[in-house]
């Protein structure tokens, strides 16, 4: 992961690496671009695994890539329903114990690979539509439903940055897990990469 890897990738065309953010875009383009780059990178690190791969652990940690797929699917839906608008989280979570911190991680062991990829892919598709609609409505300065309890509400800018941070951190976990599973390493998906598993 050297900084020198960046110029090589940025020279690619958009169709090769659609996840690369612009070099000198607007604030929205940069933040949404960073989020999309991390989503693509996480999905690449998680892609094409069987049950054993998705349940692999390393060191003293109980984290798994399967657990991360399910956790991030919950985080996506939570961010752009309950936190953004105050609406219920909706399908497929409302009958599940999604709000118990450990549940996405522990219950993922009982899901098939196809179910886990579909959960994440579905949540991201919903998030894209919700974030696009909110940005069109009021931009990054708009205040979200979530507050600190003293009447200070988070801005949409803060929520997007929270999600960038969340993905960055968990993609770091996925890096070390994936390397232990099959030796795959690297900072960015290779040019032209597309997900092979899931819908």
């Amino acid at each position: 992961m050297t900084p020198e890897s960046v110029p090589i990738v940025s020279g690619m065309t958009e169709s090769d690496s659609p996840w690369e953010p612009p070099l000198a875009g607007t604030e929205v383009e940069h933040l949404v671009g960073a989020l999309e780059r991390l989503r693509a990178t996480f999905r690449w690190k998680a892609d094409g695994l069987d049950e054993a791969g998705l349940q692999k652990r390393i060191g003293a940690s109980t984290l798994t890539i399967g657990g991360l797929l399910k956790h991030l699917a919950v985080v996506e839906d939570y961010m752009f329903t309950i936190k953004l608008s105050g609406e219920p989280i909706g399908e497929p979570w409302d009958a599940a114990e999604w709000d118990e911190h450990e549940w996405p991680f522990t219950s993922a062991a009982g899901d098939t690979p196809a179910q886990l990829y579909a959960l994440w892919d579905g949540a991201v598709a919903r998030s894209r539509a919700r974030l696009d609609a909110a940005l069109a409505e009021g931009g990054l300065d708009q205040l979200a439903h979530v507050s600190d309890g003293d009447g200070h509400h988070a801005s949409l800018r803060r929520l997007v940055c929270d999600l960038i941070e969340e993905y960055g951190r968990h993609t770091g976990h996925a890096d070390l897990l994936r390397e232990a599973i099959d030796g795959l390493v690297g900072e960015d998906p290779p040019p032209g990469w597309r997900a092979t598993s899931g819908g």
Partner: protein
Amino acid sequence: MTELDDHGRPEPPLGGDELATLVGFLDYQRATLAWKCAGLDATGLDATVGRSTMTLGGILKHMAYVEDYWFSERLHGHDPSPPWAAADWEADRDWEWHSAAADTPEQLRALWQDAVIRSRALVTEAMADGGLGRPARRPWDNGTAPSLRWILVHMIEEYARHNGHADLLRESVDGETGE
């Protein structure tokens, strides 16, 4: 005064403007790395997990390098500062990762901390000289140059990703976990 959490980290602003939010998130990530590396001796900073050769000491030295690379060399066009200028990058592209094993914990922490202090001043300087849209003084070979905005967002990603590595390394060293 910004409020610090139990691990000495400044909470990013809830409703700040673009600059305050980006710098707030970057400083929170920097403080997270400091926490994940806190209190460890040379053995702890040199531990690995799984199949990866990454270490916490290597992350500290790599992030010191990355701070200087983006904010000093790229953003302002400055020459590499020591020890980067003296390193033999031809012999080892990952020199900062590997050479960290020979540094003391005090050296690694100081190297990183000093780089962070330099970066903060360089961001302030660039903000006074064009703001977030200001292009890096040293463009890439194809002539394009990232904006300060791009560099700040990239650094948040870079830290968050390495802090994910730090989470698993630290847990394997002494069981300490936490977001």
